[in-house]
């Protein structure tokens, strides 16, 4: 890929080198975007963000092009957010703006803070996005959001899966039946509104179980203990607990979650974290 890159770089320069010998297709003054264009595009984006925070989806809808790919998914996701999440505050930082003659691309990191509608539990999502803004006759319009979508909790944000600790001494694992204090947390804004989610746990010894995580705030699922125990007998699958055959350690316990919509134009992605038992 690196050699392809340099070949293309040379090709780019070759394209330009004798440029003045060529006649342009259309006599036009070259357009170069300036900071005023970038500022206007950012102001238009800020206006959309304020409308999203206040739940004014009608204003956003009026500023979208009906030909936008995923128009209805975008709108439905925003409406679902304004019903499920209260007091939404979207904080943008580390902004980088790239502008062309009629296009501006604003790259930012974001944090979205909110309270769940049912019990007012605070929550926070974070991600990185590129907002594509197009200049139209009536100003700058939002053409698309790529990367993690902060506006619509079902439009694709990459999940995070965390498991602590990463290593467990066999001596600390109770004999069956028993449970072990293992912290598992999954954050997937695409699943905001679900009360629980099941991820997969499997061991290198052949056991395989579903592990239910409970929502602690919209899109954030957690459990603090796992039915994990040791036994000299071979494990039994789908028994409701993860069994470690203590005569065959070290063993690896892996947790796996498939993020169906990870954003950034990425197809369904598998996230996994492993714990070593020795």
């Amino acid at each position, binding site marked *: 890929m*690196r050699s392809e890159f340099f070949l*293309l*770089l040379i090709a*780019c320069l070759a394209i*330009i080198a004798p*440029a003045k010998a*060529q006649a342009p*297709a259309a006599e036009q003054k*070259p357009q*170069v975007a300036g*900071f005023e264009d970038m500022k206007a595009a950012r102001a238009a984006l800020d206006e959309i963000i304020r409308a999203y925070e206040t*739940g004014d*989806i*009608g204003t956003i*809808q009026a500023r979208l092009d*009906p*030909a936008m*790919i*995923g128009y*209805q*998914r975008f709108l*439905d996701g925003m*409406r679902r957010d304004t*019903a*499920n999440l*209260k007091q939404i505050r979207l*904080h943008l*930082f*580390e*902004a*980088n*703006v*790239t*502008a062309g003659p009629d*296009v501006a691309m604003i790259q930012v*990191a974001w944090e979205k803070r909110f309270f769940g*509608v*049912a*019990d007012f539990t*605070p*929550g*926070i999502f974070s991600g*990185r996005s*590129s907002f*594509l803004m197009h200049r139209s006759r009536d100003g700058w319009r939002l053409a*698309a959001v790529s990367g993690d979508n902060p506006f619509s909790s079902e439009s*694709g944000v990459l999940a995070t899966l965390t498991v602590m600790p990463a290593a467990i001494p066999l001596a600390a694992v109770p004999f069956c039946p028993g449970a072990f204090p293992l912290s598992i947390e999954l954050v997937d804004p695409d699943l905001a509104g*679900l009360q629980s989610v*099941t991820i997969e746990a499997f061991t290198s010894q052949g056991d*395989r179980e579903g592990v239910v995580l409970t929502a602690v705030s919209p899109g954030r699922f957690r459990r603090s203990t796992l039915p994990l125990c040791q036994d000299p007998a071979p494990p*039994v*699958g789908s028994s409701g607990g993860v069994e470690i055959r203590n005569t065959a350690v070290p063993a690896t316990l892996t947790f*796996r979650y*498939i993020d*169906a*919509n990870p954003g950034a*134009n990425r*197809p*369904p992605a*598998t996230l996994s974290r492993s714990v070593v038992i020795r």
Partner: protein
Amino acid sequence: MIRCSRQAETIRRGLTSAALPGLVLGLSNSPALATSQLADNGAVLAQFAQASGGPAPELVKGEDGTTQIEWHGNATVDFYSRSASGGATLTPYSGGQFHRIGMQSDLRGTAPEGDVSWMQLALTQSDDPSLLLLGNSQINTLSAGRAGQGYRLALGDVAVSHSSLGANMPLRGILAQRYFGQTLVSASAGVIAESWEALADQGRRRMFLKNAYALKAESPFGQNLQAYATVQGYREDGDSVGANAPALVPSSGNTATAGLNWREGRYYLQAEGGLSRYGEKGLDGHRDRALIVDGGWQGDKLGLRLGHHDLGRYYASLSGLAGAGIRETYANASWQAAQWMSLTGDVRRSENQMAAPPVPPPPPTIPPTPVTPYTPFVGKTEAANLRAQFTFLDVPGLGLGLSVGESHGKSSGGSSNRNANQGANLTYMQPAWNASLGYQNSTLKNSIAAGSDSRSDTWTASYGRNWSDATAVAPASWMLNATASGSFQRQHLENGTTSTLNTLNLVVMGERSQWGRLSAILGGSRGHDATGGELRQHWYQLDAGRALGQRGGIRLYLRAMSSFQDRAAIAYRDKTAGVQLSYAF
């Protein structure tokens, strides 16, 4: 802005090769530069050389005697003190003394033949973690290039905008475009990275670096038709992130597309089709396709649009516009039915193959553990929206907007959802005052998250008034504007509980020439959540500014927000007081 056009000289080289540090230093010397609004080239270039510490661009006498250098820019410095409480989950702000320095420089040279060379740089330096989470400085924009008749070359931050299904994204690299006769060839290559700092420092990366290229050729066929073809690809660098990065497999993708734009009289059509190959390291690859067609007819009072988009789940492109896993068909019409009424209607059917799946129970154990295949979950949605706008000829300034929309969704897993919304907004505008009254109602039902099914009613009202000494022949020397607004929202959840939030906000802005400007905001909200817990918030903001000379300015600001202080678990507040100095040239 500094504008130089006095002498019959042309800058042949140097503008695009100017050293970046020089430009940055040049900003710090801006007071000296500001003494001359209209300087000759020699003076500007001497200052440039002094600022950059290197030789100035060479000046060569031109043939037609016109050269134009423009240098726009500004610098702002903020010092502020903030107190904050509540923790990171509730507020992005932390307490302390902070500063922020922002600089922008836009240097351009226009050659006699009209070719433009430019170099743009924007920087932020701050010790406030709510502005810059990692590090304390950031390049916000870095771009240089040259554009003229039939060609464009850009380096740095480049906006690649080739097509909807091909490449449409920001890139840190190079972009070159040139006409060969009537055919436009565009090529770009570079790296997709979170920022320039992440590109330089692995410790600041949270995503893989993505090496990318994109090519496009476009040519007209007759007066009404343009056709184009694109090729692009990318590969994520698996070694580019540290051990704490998301547990993802680096991927690669290649795409080829072909499309056309046609317009004849009142009809127009845009279409593009694409084929892609996507792969994750160590896993089987996927081939997929995409097609979009958008067309329409625009009459004097009626406009019709029709479109169909079909993008496979594994369609991998470099376009932010190309949302994978979408199939939708829509019809949209705008009709100026009468002088006092316009209507906009939209119906569409969408299929979302990336919808959040209901989580299936784990499959039975079949040792050794096989990899679970991903089970596609398809969400189908049918939606209709109608908006009407009325103006009343007998009552100038009075307007009424009505909207109604509904969407029904079903999944292959048997779940369903429904969104319905209605709204009305009445506005009245006069030169000295304006008022509005609005109502919105929305209902949401979702069988896989029934706990949040609800109906919301929201009323909004506002009244604004302007005062000034403007007359028919003289502009205003002072003005005052005041706006009071309120919103009243009530949400009924299916489980029988209710939450309310009533908000009032008052904004006053005044400006007097030679004095400066002042704005004040005062607001508060009261209500309760679905558990019955009381919600109380209040906020205020004062902002005063005035010019310092022709190009400078000073601003003082104080803003504060206090939320839910009588509920310790969710209480947060922040207060900021600061001063900003600015200089523009």
